[in-house]
């Protein structure tokens, strides 16, 4: 359960930026979460609700929304060169069984945007 710490980091980054813009409220936060980023979307939502309730982030209100955009994992086999959707960070080719496929996407965990007012 490292999502709590990561969610706090995300809120801190967004809050600092929102303060620079002079916003009084953060209406929504949009994160991109890769399938292979080792971050669980459900746990992020749970952490987000807990942070909202804690009252430690004054720019968040009960109405602030967390939107998650899923980035699917893609990998390329180094032997047969096919592209496939790996089920874990250690990408194993479904055709030839070769591990260590080159990851093309799915590792992202970033703040895409937020809405403030």
């Amino acid at each position: 359960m490292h999502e709590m710490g990561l969610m706090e980091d995300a809120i801190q980054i967004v809050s600092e930026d929102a303060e620079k813009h002079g916003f009084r409220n953060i209406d929504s936060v949009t994160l991109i979460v890769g399938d292979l980023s080792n971050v669980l979307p459900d746990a992020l939502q749970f952490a987000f609700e807990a942070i909202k309730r804690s009252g430690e982030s004054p720019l968040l209100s009960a109405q602030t929304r967390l939107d998650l955009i899923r980035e699917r994992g893609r990998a390329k086999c180094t032997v047969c060169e096919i592209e496939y959707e790996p089920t874990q960070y250690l990408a194993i080719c479904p055709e030839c069984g070769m591990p260590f496929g080159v990851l093309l996407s799915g590792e992202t965990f970033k703040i895409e945007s937020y809405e403030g007012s």
Partner: protein
Amino acid sequence: MKVTLNRNVMENNDEAAAFNRDLFNKTQTLVINLMSSPGAGKTTILEKTIGALSGEFRMAVIEGDIATERDADRIRALGAPAVQIATEGECHLDPRMVAKVLPEIDLDTVDILFIENVGNLVCPSEFDLGQNHRVVVLSTPEGNDKIPKYPLMFHVTELALINKIDLIPYVAFDMDKAEKDLSGINPKSRLLPVSAKTGEGFETWLNWIKDAYQACVKQ
């Protein structure tokens, strides 16, 4: 109003890890991040290691646990400086927690710093602390399955100490299979059987540390 950020959530951690690494390089301190599940024997390995190398190197330890000072007390009993990080719930150490306690250690007078991570085979593997080397400990009673079950941990480490080999007559642990599983997940990693209780295999482990120290100082 919508504001596009496109910022990595881990950026604070990446910056802190770079800060730590820079400090370790400047002070020529070899830093080893030791990880395992709870009870695999990290602290006992450190006790034995510090006991064996105390004539040659000046060592210090950062201990990470959810609660208590118990591990740090065990290290201090050997005369080595130890700082305890009580994470109060977090299941891993992150580089900022480490950066925060570094002022408590005089790195100019330390040759080797061990960071004993929170006992957990999952989250600690995801956080770069700025260390030179990541080492995982797996004990024989935990069984062979831990290697394929927690692939990221064995993928990011470069040495797997298989501890408690004195228990092999009593537990089902197949060293050949462990070697095969490890090379399938990380061909660059090395498997090293040890017993912190009997000292078996320790010479190889201590030599690995000495080589790592030489490489770190020559950088």
